[in-house]
């Protein structure tokens, strides 16, 4: 008998627990040539805001040991253009579509969330709270517990869709942020976004990114991400999508064991745009080899 990879997360049925991380597959179009989208659990699209924004000047990315820094600056086509031009493409495929949303004020989060009510082909919202709060000095919403609370409250009120909050790792105690999200009615959590980092060229003495600082991703952050998933799993009851440096099936299993109900593949898509399908296939084989029937047998199954 084939193992059952399907899983219900935040009220959404995924055919398997493998998803594409926000910002690493845009709106799905470019990656289809290299990746059979129909075989994924979900696609989490690039961040969407109320109005179009151009993103940061170059250089936007640079490589670091076993990872990369990015300061793409959330270029986005705006909610209306997304619904009109990009969503019809995504609707053709099996996987669930989670729309990653962001704003520069609390109210903007609410407004973007509201626009997706009743929009066919959107199964849930993933709220990126790692961006700067313009009205309050540019501190990221997700690193301030009260800003986090207000964003979750306003999004919760604005939408009937399942809401996942994507936690920032740039905090001392991630469990307390997870609890606030759960208390305010979030249906799930994505853990983690990128770690704030920086790199300087020792020839030119200039920062390697035009934005000076950027978000670190890739295998370099995996142990931090696994630790945070585990801490959050112990702190709350709502399900977790785990991510951070997942490149192979074993990496994915590590996140499931730590407590994630699903995983997102991010930076690995840049090295091999078909890798997420290899992970789906690998998971099936892993479960067969271990004699597991249901993916839920792995979730939070760490022995300690």
């Amino acid at each position, binding site marked *: 008998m084939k193992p059952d990879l399907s899983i219900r997360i935040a009220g959404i049925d995924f055919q398997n627990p493998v998803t594409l991380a926000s910002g690493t597959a845009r709106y799905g179009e470019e990656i289809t040539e290299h990746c059979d989208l129909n075989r994924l659990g979900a696609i989490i699209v690039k961040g969407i805001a109320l109005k179009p924004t151009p993103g940061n000047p170059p250089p*936007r990315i640079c490589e670091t040991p076993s990872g990369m820094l990015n300061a793409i600056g959330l270029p986005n086509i705006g909610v209306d253009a997304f619904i009109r031009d990009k969503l019809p493409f995504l609707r053709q495929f099996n996987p669930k579509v989670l729309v990653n949303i962001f704003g520069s004020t609390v109210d903007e989060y609410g407004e973007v969330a509201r626009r997706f009510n009743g929009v066919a082909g959107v199964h849930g919202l993933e709220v990126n709270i790692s961006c700067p709060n313009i009205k309050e000095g540019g501190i990221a919403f997700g690193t301030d517990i009260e800003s986090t609370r207000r964003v979750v409250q306003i999004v919760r009120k604005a939408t009937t869709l399942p809401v996942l909050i994507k936690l920032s790792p740039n905090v001392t105690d991630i469990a307390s942020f997870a609890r606030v999200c759960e208390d305010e009615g979030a249906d799930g959590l994505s853990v983690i976004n990128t770690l704030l980092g920086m790199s300087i060229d020792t020839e030119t003495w200039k920062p390697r990114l035009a934005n000076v600082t950027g978000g670190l991703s890739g*295998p370099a952050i995996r142990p931090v991400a696994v630790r945070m998933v585990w801490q959050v799993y112990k702190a709350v009851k709502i399900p977790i999508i785990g991510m951070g440096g997942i490149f192979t099936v074993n990496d994915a299993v590590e996140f499931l064991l730590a407590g994630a109900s699903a995983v997102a593949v991010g930076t690995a898509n*840049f090295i091999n745009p078909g890798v997420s399908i290899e992970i789906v296939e690998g998971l099936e084989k892993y479960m067969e080899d271990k004699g597991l029937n249901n993916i839920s047998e792995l979730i939070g199954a760490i022995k300690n």
Partner: protein
Amino acid sequence: MRVRIASNSCIKGTYYRIVLEPSFKVNIAPGQFVMLRPATPCNSYDPLLPRPFSIHRVDQSGNIEILYKVVGRVTTILSMIVEGDEVDILGPLGNGFPVNREVVGDNILIIAGGIGAAPIIGLGETLRTNYPDRPIVIILGGRGEADLLCVEDLKKTAAEVIITTNDGSVGIKGYVTDALEEYLSRRCDPGLRTTVYACGPSPMLQKISEITGTRRNIETYFSLEANMACGIGLCMGCAVKRRDRGYYLVCKDGPVFRGDTIVL
């Protein structure tokens, strides 16, 4: 796609030629590139990202030739791999140099600096085949003699090859852009349409833009470089500023752009 290395050897100094043996047929337009990542004998996460390299040419047996200069981590590793090792490639990617009738002028000028010579051989050959009656002038430059690649091949495709070196070891002492100014002011009929194709470091392209921007009847096409992670439009990391608003992605919208549509 994992491909076998047919050969890999030093051309001169820090410049190498690697020949890949793909198991599939490749059709390329000059100026297209591949994302390449060493896979054997050691496939590790450090270095992590693949790197973009122009396709120099595809030979009769369908092998892909790439010329590269050793500048950092991946190119150093590349220089050490040997026949029989494997690399992962994705491509051909991007839009090459446009060579259609609407674009190609009465005069054709191709400018390359250093490793920028890699993609222009194919461009020169295509233009010569398609427009045998139009003279092609190539300006090739480098720091010194050791930085001049493909001189003999270029001489076969062009009516004239003008060489510049910063140290004056061969050709005109100075930059390719000095030779360009000289050529435009003395020998290029402003009544005729001139198309300039260029590949090289960003300051070189900037200077070409300045020089040609003040003249009539010149259209430029630049092949740009950018830090890339994916090469296929996923990461949005390879931005270049558009003249009108926002950004293009070098990997997907380029790497070749009309000079007056971008800000370098």
